[in-house]
């Protein structure tokens, strides 16, 4: 589904990623872990089109997406969430998710201003779909709340619902458990598995090892901008190089 080939990213003299390659298989949950400063967020920003890598290529289902802007990637079915949730604060919860339907609708300024019949039909569909995804994330009861007033944990769920409304093939989650309490993290784990079960490929960066070991089908370990190991959660847990990187020798 997602493949990176020899991606290198340098910021001035600093090399954040060095000849990094990895694959995330379709229908699986792939976790990317690594100590702070390993290059995980840089990697995410490259894949999601926010940065452009210095060298190397990124493929989405064998299509070269290197250097594509985020809005193009969205229309190809790739979407991400952010570590410090990026909600549309002044919009309601429902409206936030409705923005997620942007690529799945196409009425222009003219059609919207004059309320052409196509636009009205589309608007109904947008609302129905948005409600469906709010229910999926379990926050449909909050749909009229202004997003800025949500507690952090609910904001996280909203961001996920908004991303799912796009009906992506690939969902990237940047530290989805950051800032959540243990009960919310458990619920999140269930939600991530349900997302996989509806056929969305998930790639996540995460610090919470318990969550990663619980949900991931495959794990990639990054350290100092290089790939340290890949494998199943069990293999990673037993890998001496990984243990050394995390605990120090």
């Amino acid at each position, binding site marked *: 589904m997602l493949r990176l080939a020899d991606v290198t990213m340098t910021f001035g003299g600093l090399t954040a990623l060095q000849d990094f390659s990895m694959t995330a298989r379709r229908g699986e949950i792939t976790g990317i872990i690594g100590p702070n400063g390993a290059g995980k967020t840089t990697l995410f920003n490259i894949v*999601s089109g926010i940065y452009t890598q210095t060298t190397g290529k990124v493929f989405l289902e064998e299509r070269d997406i290197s250097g594509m802007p*985020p809005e193009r990637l969205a229309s190809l079915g790739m979407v991400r969430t952010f570590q410090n949730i990026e909600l*549309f604060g002044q919009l309601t919860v429902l409206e936030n998710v409705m923005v997620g339907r942007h690529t799945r609708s196409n009425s222009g300024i003219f059609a919207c201003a004059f309320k052409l019949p196509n636009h009205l039909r589309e608007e109904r569909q947008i609302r129905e779909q948005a409600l469906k995804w709010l229910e999926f994330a379990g926050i449909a009861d909050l749909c009229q709340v202004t997003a800025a007033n949500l507690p952090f944990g609910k904001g996280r769920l909203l961001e996920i619902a908004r991303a799912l409304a796009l009906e992506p093939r690939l969902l990237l989650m940047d530290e989805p458990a950051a800032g959540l309490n243990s009960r919310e993290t458990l619920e999140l784990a269930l939600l991530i598995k349900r997302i996989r079960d509806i056929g969305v490929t998930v790639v996540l960066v995460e610090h919470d090892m318990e969550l990663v070991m619980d949900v991931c089908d495959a794990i990639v370990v990054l350290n100092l901008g290089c790939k340290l190991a890949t494998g199943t959660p069990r293999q990673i847990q037993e890998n001496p190089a990984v243990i050394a990187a995390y605990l120090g020798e």
Partner: protein
Amino acid sequence: MKREVVKFIIFAALVMLAPLPLKQSYLLNVLVFVGINTLLAVALNLLLGFAGQISLGHAAFFGMGAYLSGILTANFGLNPWLIIVLAAVTVGGLAFVLGFPILKLKGHYLAMATLGFGIIFYIVFNETIGLTGGPSGLPGIPNLAIGSLTFDNDLKNYYLIWGVTLLTILLCVNLAHSRIGRALRAIHDSEVAARVMGVNVRLLKVQIFALSAAISAVAGSLYAHTMTFISPTSFGFNFSVELVTMVIIGGLGSIYGSFLGAALLTLLPELLRAFRDYDIIAYGALLVFMTIFMPGGLVRGIPDLMLFLWSRLTGKRGGNAQTG
């Protein structure tokens, strides 16, 4: 959506009935200008209130519409209605082209760039004396007419201008409650998240800039035909700032707020006549007061204030009442 329809019908009815008690008074003349300013404020609000992009050069688009209509009808005798459409398309097209480089900028830099082109056009209006008449103005612009009906007095102009303004308000309210309106407000809150959701932020900003400019140009054309005389002072930097003030005072992102802001800023100088030479101080003080105590604009400030007063009057500690 139903609520929006009711709101619009009430607003339109009030607007339509307002001239009845006024006859041909001076106030009616002022209300004509409230109509033009509302049209301009609504246009700027699309850009400033919804998409969150400032323009300190909107008076230039207003001026371009006015001069295109003025010059082509007064000097070349072309059909005024045709020219209004032509002005909207030309100015919208120009804004579209200008928008690509300018709207790449953010915050203060965007303010500077729009300020810059506003000033450039102000100079053009002043200096191309052969075309615009320069500082002494352009006289002899005909009134608009449909057949034998000539819009030559305040009452007729009131209905003409408010007709256009109401139509624009209706279209903008529709736009606000659509995927485009949501995408614009999304850009305002988080540009990166909007892009990730597939909103083509750059294109949408430019499109809305062009639409806003086109509406401003129509306002300019209507202004020229109503006044029959235009001069560059109406289209300078001060007026651009006044438009921004209308939108902010009224309430960012509220279409009816734009009307309140435009009405207040148009009527205020008239009301402050009592202060004579000190009117500018009273004017400034009021604006400062409003931005401090009604940061959400009149559209949110007035209901909050009424709730607060009501809770004081009834002696109840109103739960939701805020001084806003």
